């Protein structure tokens, strides 16, 4: 096959077995590309078990900075015999299959339209390492070396990454170098390289870091001053907890006493986790929990309590594939409705919806301010793709001058000065948000009995329908106040006038951005609306009103964001056209492009 080099634009997929140590090798591979200045993104596709099943790691390199999933795999490094047959099928025509030729490849697996590159990984590993465990682990580094050489990576950068990685365990560096060299040398000595898809250094990652959303979220909570996290393990939210704990251990231990300025509680279940968070927030500490769909379902009753008793809560929902236990290790945006209207009765809950790890960090911090300011539960809505995968994103930043917004809390002094009767649910400021007091603040003023039952403005139990309704109306007013407190949607108007829009949120940001460029290339101009929060900021309706049709990108089956839009903004449903993906894989730019560019309303709208 003739080869013309394609620089800095490819997708490489590593097909491994989980529990074999490939994940850390693959991560070093991606990190090295990042260090070479290349925009890179990695998706880990793993099973819901611990050892022995197929797992894939997909690295996309895109000089243009397109960091969503892309269809078409250019190179597959096939290390897993279980999935080999399928892996071979998945290589794009003209692409490469790098496999372990320690064993013979079945003839019927062969394809004429792709390039097969055999590397005797197992053989080399067996020859160079003694224990079975070492053999298995270093095989991973061997293929990293081989691939690096084949695509012309900078070897020093990889060694730098290895050195950094093992800086606390220096004795591990030489064997890793050795394995890397084994891979490199095999290619150098036996194969033509570089192959068609290759890389060269660039400078597209300045001011960027590569980090997963959950780590950024956990760190956001540390910066926001959260002192208590109660949680129950569940994929894909567990690493939010790990990150919070890790950084608390680093940053929140009193150097003198060795004591913790935080509490980290693995609860007995999700019901208890949110109960603890409610108790702590009621008592004036910033506390939060992180979970995924099944946890949110279990928390439903307490979510209603938070709404009605007006207790601040931050609830991080890293969405996975539903319904029920569903696809625990796959990504979806299918909890939009179940979060927005969680719990029985008339309830609504604000949601902050980050699209990048940097936003995970910022919005988590914002969520605490918003929860305390508005005395209600705030969801941070992310997903497995954002939470567990590494993304190229802006460096995290923090404004040291900004204070935490602890909301309307009466402290001892204020209570002391107060002459009128304290009314916990009085709408003093005409914004629907009342004042609260923290237990223990004042010997004789400000105490009240918090409850999830109907009560009057002075927190006294009542069954008076008028008083109840007035309180419900105040909660609606508070909802309107919240609109101005959440981040506004980002509107990216098209350069050219257009009647077509595309609305997206969360991780659909990456492919939607790419799809827009693809559409523009095809002469289709589009206004982009990036939803950042619920309730929707005013510009959402304003923008939609100016358009004829808006494509709503939802990573769920039922078009859940579309539901929220038509219901909350009274938009004619016919204006909103769903673009859906719900197979558990992140939606691709290709899919969005195809659905929009071939949609019949396009003719209608472009005729205008």
């Amino acid at each position, binding site marked *: 096959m003739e080869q013309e080099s394609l620089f800095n634009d490819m997708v490489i997929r590593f097909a491994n077995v989980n529990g074999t140590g490939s994940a850390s090798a693959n991560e070093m591979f991606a990190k090295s590309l990042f*260090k070479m200045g290349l925009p890179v993104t990695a998706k880990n596709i793993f099973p819901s078990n611990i050892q022995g099943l197929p797992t894939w790691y997909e690295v996309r390199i895109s000089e243009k900075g397109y960091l969503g999933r892309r269809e078409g795999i250019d190179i597959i490094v096939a290390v897993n015999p279980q999935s080999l047959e399928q892996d071979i099928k998945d290589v794009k025509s003209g692409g490469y299959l790098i496999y372990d030729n320690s064993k013979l490849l079945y003839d019927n697996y062969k394809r004429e339209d792709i390039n097969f590159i055999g590397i005797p990984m197992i053989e080399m590993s067996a020859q160079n390492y003694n224990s079975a465990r070492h053999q298995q682990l270093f095989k991973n580094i061997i293929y990293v070396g081989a691939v690096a050489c084949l695509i012309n990576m900078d070897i020093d950068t990889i060694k730098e990454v290895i050195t950094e990685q093992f800086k606390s365990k220096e004795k591990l560096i030489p064997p890793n170098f050795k394995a890397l060299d084994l891979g490199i040398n095999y290619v150098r000595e036996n194969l033509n390289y570089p192959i068609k898809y290759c890389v060269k250094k660039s400078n597209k990652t300045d001011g*960027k870091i590569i980090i997963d959303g959950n780590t950024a979220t956990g760190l956001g909570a540390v910066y926001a001053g959260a002192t208590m996290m109660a949680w129950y393990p569940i994929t894909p939210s567990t690493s939010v907890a790990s990150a919070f704990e890790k950084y608390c251990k680093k940053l929140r231990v009193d150097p003198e006493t060795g004591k*913790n*300025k935080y509490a980290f509680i693995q609860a007995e279940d999700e019901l208890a986790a949110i109960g603890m968070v409610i108790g702590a927030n009621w008592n004036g500490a910033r506390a939060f929990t992180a979970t995924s769909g099944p946890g949110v379902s279990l928390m439903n009753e307490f979510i209603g309590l938070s709404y009605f008793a007006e207790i601040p809560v931050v609830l991080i929902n890293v969405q996975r594939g539903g319904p029920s236990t569903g696809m625990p290790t796959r990504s979806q945006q299918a909890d939009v409705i179940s979060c927005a209207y969680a719990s029985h009765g008339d309830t609504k809950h604000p949601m902050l919806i980050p699209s990048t790890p940097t936003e995970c960090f910022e919005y988590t911090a914002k969520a605490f301010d918003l929860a305390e300011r508005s005395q209600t539960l705030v969801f941070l809505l992310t997903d497995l793709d954002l939470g567990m995968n590494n993304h190229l994103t802006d460096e995290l930043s923090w404004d040291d001058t900004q204070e935490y917004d602890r909301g309307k809390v009466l402290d001892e002094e204020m209570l002391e000065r107060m002459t009128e009767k304290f009314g916990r649910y009085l709408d003093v400021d005409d914004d629907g948000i009342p004042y609260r*007091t923290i237990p*223990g603040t004042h010997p004789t003023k400000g105490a*009240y009995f918090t409850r999830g039952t109907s009560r009057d403005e002075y927190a006294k139990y009542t069954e008076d329908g008028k008083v109840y309704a007035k309180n419900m109306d105040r909660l609606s007013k508070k909802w309107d106040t919240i609109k101005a407190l959440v981040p506004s949607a980002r509107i990216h108007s098209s350069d050219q006038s257009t009647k077509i829009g595309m609305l997206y949120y969360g991780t659909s940001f990456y492919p939607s951005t790419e799809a827009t460029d693809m559409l523009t290339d095809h002469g289709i101009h589009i206004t982009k609306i990036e939803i950042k929060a619920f309730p929707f900021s005013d510009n959402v309706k304003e923008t939609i009103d100016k358009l004829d049709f808006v494509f709503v990108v939802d990573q769920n089956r039922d078009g859940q964001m579309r539901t929220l839009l038509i219901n909350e903004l009274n938009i004619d449903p016919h204006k909103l056209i769903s673009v859906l993906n719900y197979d558990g894989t992140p939606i691709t730019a290709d899919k969005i492009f195809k659905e929009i560019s071939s949609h019949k309303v396009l003719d209608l709208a472009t005729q205008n």
Partner: protein
Amino acid sequence: MSYIKPQFHHPELKKNKVGYYKTDYEGVISTLCAGCGHDSISSAIVHACYEISLEPHRLAKLSGIGCSSKTPAYFLSNSHGFNSVHGRMPSVATGAGLANRDLIYMGISGDGDTASIGMGQFVHAVRRNINMVYIVMNNGCYGLTKGQDSATADFGSISKSGSENPYTAIDLVGLALELNAGFVGRSFSGDKSQLVPMIKAALSHPGFAFIDVISPCVTFNNNQGSTKSYSYVRDHIEATSVLDFVPFEEEIKVDYEDGTSAELELFNGSKIVLSKISSHWDPRNKILAKKYLNESKENGQILTGLFYIDTETESFHKKLNTVTTPLNKLSKNDLCPGSSKLTDINKTFM
């Protein structure tokens, strides 16, 4: 609605050490049935808090849902309270306690609230050794939802609906001991001389202090039994099948010596036997406590008293190694690592 508290402040009442009158420990007027055991327990709590000179605002009272869980409104008006959701008070108390280690926490629950829907959270509150007094107002039934059997109802007892309970009762005291609670006691709502000191002791225990208080339900308790005073009412209810009559009753009081037993007549004339552990009892011997408990159960007696105290329990905050300043008092300075640290952190992701 009962009237357990005096309607006006008696001028002769004495201030306690922290300058409060006993009335300062009261709450709003109870809306429970006249004679309900729960009201007696509220009053014992008022007594205990007054007597140990606790400043009301230094206590936070939490509850689930039920007649029992309403009582925090009926004592300590100057304390913050949280009437949470059914069965989930333990987790709310856990969170509250973590936020401010300096307050005293009192959790009030019912046998339905704790032994059924709240069982999981109860077990784990014990396990974590949350610093709180946990009182179960145990009437063997679901008062607020009209008298269904609870999981502490005795095997064979007859519920309001006339069915015989086929399940063995869960003994919350036995369970708390098995789960290594550091303070375990049982008393009777009308036995102030035992209950008040027990609550005082619990309030000063540095960890989870559990008190199971037998508390007769005027309206639904022990429906079968003597046909005396209740008969007309019961006949009426059977005939109309509408549960809408509750006679006003006096609270049931009892006073008996340590080491003795007392037979008690409940509202409907049925009887229970309380038996009090002796004053020579060594409450540090758990094995013995369990043994006595089992034996008295087999004799059809309800053993009361302070069964077990472990003075060396490690509190939750100790386990978690938290700073001595309450977490809710830490300021941004204490908590926010600031932008320069963030620069370092960013580097680890480059």
